[in-house]
């Protein structure tokens, strides 16, 4: 835990000095979270790719304004999210979140029964369908917290709101999700 942030800061410093390979390394480190963040915001794979790429390029250009010693990832994600928001309006269509193809049961002997798997899948499908009925903002908040497992600082950066607002936005979104699930299942 001690070494990694330090190393990242070194990369940031090297990138600031114009070391292109250092920045490339930073992109490699963060491309997945950046891409997925963009995807949550724009809801479209192509737009997300462009937004993430835009975000990285903008971040590169803005490295001079990066505050030394600050956390790089929230700073980066804020930029990526802004790039994504600029594209959200233009996205031709927003694809809702989807589930992975049902995972084949593990080959081990302790695999859950097919019925149990089916039921779990069914409940996930129901939940994701309810999430997809939420407004985009609520979907993003929930996605950041639960699918990208972000903490408050990063959520605040991505949502472009004060840290104190994150919790209330999340809890309102969760309440609306509960309402959307309605009485459809109480198991």
């Amino acid at each position, binding site marked *: 835990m001690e070494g990694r942030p330090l190393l990242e800061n070194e990369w940031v410093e090297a990138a600031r000095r114009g070391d*292109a390979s250092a920045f490339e390394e930073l992109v490699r480190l963060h491309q997945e979270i950046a891409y997925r963040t963009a995807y949550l915001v724009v809801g479209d794979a192509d737009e997300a790719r462009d937004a993430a790429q835009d975000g990285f390029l903008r971040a590169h250009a803005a490295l001079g304004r990066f505050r030394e010693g600050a956390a790089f990832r929230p700073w980066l994600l804020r930029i990526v999210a802004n790039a994504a928001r600029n594209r959200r309006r233009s996205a031709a269509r927003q694809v809702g979140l989807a589930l992975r193809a049902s995972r084949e049961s593990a080959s081990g002997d302790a695999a859950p029964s097919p019925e149990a798997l089916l039921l779990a899948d069914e409940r996930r499908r129901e939940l994701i369908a309810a999430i997809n009925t939420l407004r985009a903002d609520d979907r993003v908040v929930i996605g950041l917290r639960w699918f990208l497992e972000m903490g408050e600082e990063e959520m605040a950066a991505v949502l472009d709101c004060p840290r104190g607002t994150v919790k209330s936005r999340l809890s309102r979104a969760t309440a609306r999700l509960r309402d959307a699930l309605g009485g459809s299942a109480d198991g």
Partner: protein
Amino acid sequence: MDDRTFVELEARLADLGAAIAFPATPPLAAAVAERLRRPAAPRRWSFGRSLAIALAATLLLAGIAAAFGIVVGGLRLTFGPASFSPGPSFRVGPGLGVATTLADARAAAGFTVRVPTLSALGEPDSVYLFEPPSGGVVTLLYGSRPGIPSDPETGIGLIITQFRGDISPEVFEKMINSGVTLDATRVNGLPGWWVAGGEHFFFFRDANGKVVESTLRSAGPTLIWEEDGVTTRVEGVGSLAEALRVAASLRASATSSPGG
């Protein structure tokens, strides 16, 4: 809310996280590195299906977001390490739209098209209309004229481009080499810019979000300003004074007075 419901819902959300099908992350590191190595390569840009245009995005694409920009109406002047290669010859590419007549362009444009009334210029030799941005872009092309030599490569002397300046989603950009100078000036009493001293470039996005080069690779100095919601660019005259004369002569109707 019932705490238990909340906790259960959160547990279901946590479980769902692992099952979400995010699209595979594209190789951004390679793409970004490539772009940083070659800061501006518009032909390689691929924008998917974006319809309108994100201004910020365009900046980034050039890899020069820290560079400052100046917005004149719908036109953003972007300063950065543009690395466009000079074109071998002028050709009227898709960036200009379709050839039309002045009358048809006037009828089709969503704004009042103005034409210079200097007698030395006469009528434009060609008129082009490019439609995707609301209101369209109208380009007037003039060959050589007294005091305005035509570019030996392109045959173009003077280029006047007009488009609605308040169509903010559509972005018109001018990539400018760092050697270019920019001087604030007044055009018909309004703020404008005189861009001179190096290769610069005009491009914008089409309806599919693709960057379209105007293919007018003129390196000539350019006067840009916004007037009555229309951004106008005059390119090809050698001096600011001449450009201002052209600008001052622009009229909505060059050959006939509007309805008495």
